[in-house]
C-alpha cells in the first residue's frame, strides 16, 4: 500500500478521491494539450492538502471504525513479519484443535527473544475463512494462554496484538466454554511474571479482545477502536435500528483518544494521515518505536511488582459516586 492508487477509499473519503481525480485529469490535459494549467493545478493541490487535513482531523468515531476495519490495514502477521525476526510459529492449545484466528510463537525483537501472539483476520476470501475472520473459538484463547504460560516459564516478554471483531458467537464455541476460556485468560494473564505489552492494531472487539488484553501497558494505534460492543450491535439493541451505528459509535466512546481520556490505555501510536493502510512502512516504524520504548521500560520492573501493578491498575478502573462510608 505504498502508493495512494492502491488504497481503497472509504465512503467518507469520496471528496478527496474526487479532487484527486480532477487534479489528475488536469495534469493529463496540461501534458496532452500543452496548456499551462500549472497555477490551477497548484491551487487545487493546496485545496486537496487542506481537505485531507480537515477530513482526518475532524474524523468521527464511525469513520475511525471504518479505518480500523480497513482490509488493507496491517494485520498481526504483517507486524510479525516486518518488526520481528526468527519467528517460529507455534500451534494449538493442546485441546481439540488449532484455532487459526490466533497466531503466535517465539520471535526476536531488536535481537531479544520475545513471545508474540495476536488475532489474525486473514486477507482474501480463503484466508479470511481459514482465520474465521479473526474470531476465536475457546481453543484460540487456550492456545494464546498456552503461549503466554510458555513465555512466563522461560521469562520472555509478551507482545500481544489485538485485532478482532469479537469472540466467535457459534454453537461449538458455546459448548466448549467460550465464557470460561475468556475468563481464564483474564485470570491467568493477571499473574504473569513477565512484561505484557498489548497493542490494539485494529478492532478491539469486546470480551474477545480482553482475553488477550490484560497488560502492563496497553497501547492503541491512533485509528483503532476498542469497545464493549460493536457499534452495530449497540445500535440494534439500544436504538433497535442498525442504521444508527454511527450514533452508537459516537456514544460508546471507542476511539484511542477517548480511551486515553478515560484512563483505560497507556498510549497512542500515531498513524500516517488517513490511516495505517496509506503507509505501512511508516506505521511499522511507529509501532517498532513504541514496542522498543515500552519493553525497555517494563524490563526494569521486578516481576512481582509487575503483577502487583497490574492488579492495582485494573482495580482503579470504573467511575461511580460513593456517598457512604463503605463496609
Amino acid at each position, binding site marked *: 500500500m505504498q502508493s495512494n492508487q492502491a488504497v481503497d477509499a472509504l465512503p467518507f473519503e469520496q471528496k478527496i478521491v474526487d479532487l484527486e481525480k480532477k487534479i489528475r485529469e488536469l495534469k493529463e490535459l496540461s501534458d496532452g494539450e500543452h496548456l499551462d494549467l500549472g497555477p490551477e493545478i497548484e491551487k487545487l493541490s493546496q485545496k486537496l492538502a487542506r481537505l485531507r487535513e480537515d477530513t482526518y482531523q475532524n474524523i468521527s468515531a464511525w469513520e475511525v471504525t471504518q479505518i480500523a476495519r480497513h482490509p488493507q490495514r496491517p494485520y498481526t502477521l504483517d507486524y510479525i513479519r516486518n518488526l520481528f525476526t526468527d519467528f517460529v510459529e507455534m500451534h494449538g492449545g493442546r485441546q481439540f484443535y488449532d484455532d487459526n484466528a490466533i497466531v503466535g510463537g517465539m520471535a526476536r525483537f531488536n535481537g531479544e527473544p520475545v513471545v508474540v501472539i495476536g488475532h489474525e483476520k486473514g486477507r482474501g476470501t480463503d484466508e479470511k475463512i481459514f482465520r474465521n475472520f479473526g474470531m476465536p473459538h475457546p481453543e484460540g484463547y487456550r492456545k494464546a494462554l498456552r503461549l503466554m504460560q510458555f513465555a512466563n516459564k522461560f521469562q520472555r516478554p509478551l507482545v500481544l496484538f489485538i485485532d478482532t471483531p469479537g*469472540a*466467535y*458467537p*457459534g*454453537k461449538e*464455541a*458455546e*459448548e*466448549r*466454554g*467460550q*465464557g*470460561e476460556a*475468556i*475468563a*481464564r485468560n*483474564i*485470570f491467568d494473564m*493477571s*499473574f504473569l511474571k513477565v512484561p505484557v505489552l498489548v497493542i490494539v492494531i485494529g478492532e478491539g472487539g*469486546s*470480551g474477545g479482545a*480482553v*482475553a488477550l*488484553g*490484560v497488560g502492563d501497558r496497553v497501547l492503541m494505534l491512533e485509528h483503532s477502536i*476498542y*469497545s*464493549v*460492543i460493536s457499534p452495530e*450491535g*449497540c445500535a440494534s*439493541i*439500544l*436504538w433497535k435500528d442498525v442504521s444508527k451505528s454511527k*450514533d*452508537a459509535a459516537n*456514544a*460508546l*466512546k*471507542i476511539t484511542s483518544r*477517548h*480511551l486515553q481520556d*478515560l484512563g*483505560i490505555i497507556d498510549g497512542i501510536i500515531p498513524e500516517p494521515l488517513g490511516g495505517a493502510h496509506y503507509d505501512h512502512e511508516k506505521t511499522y516504524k511507529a509501532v517498532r518505536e513504541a514496542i522498543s520504548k515500552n519493553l525497555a521500560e517494563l524490563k526494569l520492573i521486578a516481576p512481582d511488582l509487575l503483577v502487583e501493578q*497490574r*492488579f492495582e491498575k*485494573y*482495580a482503579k*478502573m*470504573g*467511575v*461511580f*459516586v*460513593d*456517598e*457512604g462510608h*463503605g*463496609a
Partner: protein
Amino acid sequence: MGWFTSKKKDIPDVFVKCTGCGEAVYNKELQKNLYVCPHCDRHLRMPNDVRIEFLCDENSFQEFNASIMASDPLGFSDSATYGERIQKAQEKTRSKEAIITGFASIEGHRLVIGMFDFSFMGGSMGSVVGEKIARAAQASLDHNLPLVIFSASGGARMHEGILSLMQMVKTSQAVAKLSKRHLPFISVLCDPTTGGVSASFAMLGDIIMAEPKALIGFAGPRVIEQTIRETLPEGFQTSEFLLEKGVIDMIVSRPEMRSTMARILSFFKQKDGAYYAVQPSR
C-alpha cells in the same frame, strides 16, 4: 412483570403467567414456593429480599456499600440519557444498582454474599457492579470468609462503554486475589447469565452451581442464530446443557440451595473454624 420487583410486604394480589409453561400462578403462592412454578418447576426470577430470607440465617444479612451509585462517565444517551435510565431503574426496583452485597450466614457459616438484581437494567455490569464485587472480595480477604455470588445478568452495561468492559478484568482479578489466598469463591448462575459476566468472575468459581433451566452462555441465542443461520436446538445454553458439557459443577434447585450451600461451605472450614486453607503470608 411488576411482581418480581415488588418488596414482599406489598405483594399484589395478582396472577402471574409462568414464563416456562404459561400457566397462571397466584403471586402469593409463587412467593411461598420460592418463585418456582408449581406446574413446571421453572425457577422464575426472584426478588433479592426473598432470596435472602430463604437462603440466609434470620437477620444475618448485613448489606454494605449500599450507597454506591452510577454516574454517567460517557454522557451516554440513546432515546433517553443514561442518567434517566438509572433513575427509572431505581424507581422501578427500589434498588440503587444491579447488585447487593453484604455479610451473611448460612446455617451458621459466615460468608460474604453478592446477589444480582436482573430487574435493574438487566443486571448489567458497569462500574458500580464491578466496584461492589471488588469490595465484596476485599471483605472476604479482610475477614477470611468465603465469597458467594448469585449472578443474573445480560452482560456488560453498554452505557458505560469501555469502562464496563474493564469490569470483566476488575472482577476477575478480585476473585483471583481470593484464589491466591486459598479462600473459596462459589459462583451461582441464575437465569440469565450471559455476556461479560459469563466471561469473567462468574466462570471462575471454585464451585460453579446453576439454578435449573437457567440460560447461561457468552453469546446470546439470537446472536448465535443470526451468525450460524440455523435454529438452536431445544435446551441449548441451559444449565442442564452446560452440566453435560462439563462447564458447571452442579445444578441446585431452590429448595435444596440452603442445605447444599451449607454442606459446601463446611467443606472449606478448617479445624480452628477459619476458612483459609493456608495461613495468609501477610
